[in-house]
């Protein structure tokens, strides 16, 4: 039972433009959401997170938006850079439990 879904397996964007990655979840009890970035042959690394009490969190070029009523979150990368080419995973967890439920990932390719 996939509780976190990333319906776009891939995204191609030109350098300097905005990348928008989407994530949907089914369990309204999820309390905390994270984005991880993964390069080939490396483990996922934490990128940015958001608590369910917020609707936006920003860190430099990365902003995550949360729409609880729609059970949807998105990651915006502005401006996109070649080093952003990677697989991005959306993940969610409950407040009293730190194990993560991951989406299938979106592969971002930033074109020069």
């Amino acid at each position, binding site marked *: 039972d996939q509780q976190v879904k990333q319906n776009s397996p891939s995204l191609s964007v030109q350098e300097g433009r905005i990348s928008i990655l989407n994530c949907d979840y089914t369990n309204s009890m999820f309390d905390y959401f994270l984005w991880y970035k993964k390069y080939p042959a490396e*483990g996922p690394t*934490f990128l940015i997170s958001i608590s369910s009490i917020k609707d936006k969190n920003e860190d430099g070029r990365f902003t995550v938006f949360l729409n609880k009523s729609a059970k949807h979150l998105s990651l915006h990368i502005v401006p996109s850079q070649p080093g952003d080419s990677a697989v991005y995973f959306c993940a969610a967890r409950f407040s009293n439990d*730190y194990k*993560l439920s*991951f*989406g*299938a990932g979106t592969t971002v390719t930033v074109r020069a």
Partner: protein
Amino acid sequence: EAGVAQSPRYKIIEKRQSVAFWCNPISGHATLYWYQQILGQGPKLLIQFQNNGVVDDSQLPKDRFSAERLKGVDSTLKIQPAKLEDSAVYLCASSLVGTRAFFGQGTRLTVV
């Protein structure tokens, strides 16, 4: 600060053989996770340890998978006997209690 160390990086075995993976978490991290990532999917939690005790192993196929964390530090994950569908990247992650997880580079297992 040293990251999460995993070995081996790659392993190829025949079906019905056994295999073991090793993980050394970040020093001081009490929580340790093993995730399985099948190609095209997001990581799926297999087991979570708190020190040397199991917190959650509900997703671990216990007829063939086993894991231990002796002395609350290093951990090993074993598969015996392996099946073709066990081909995946096995990721180890660790965290301080109640904080986000740091992942190792993973072990890529191919069962032929």
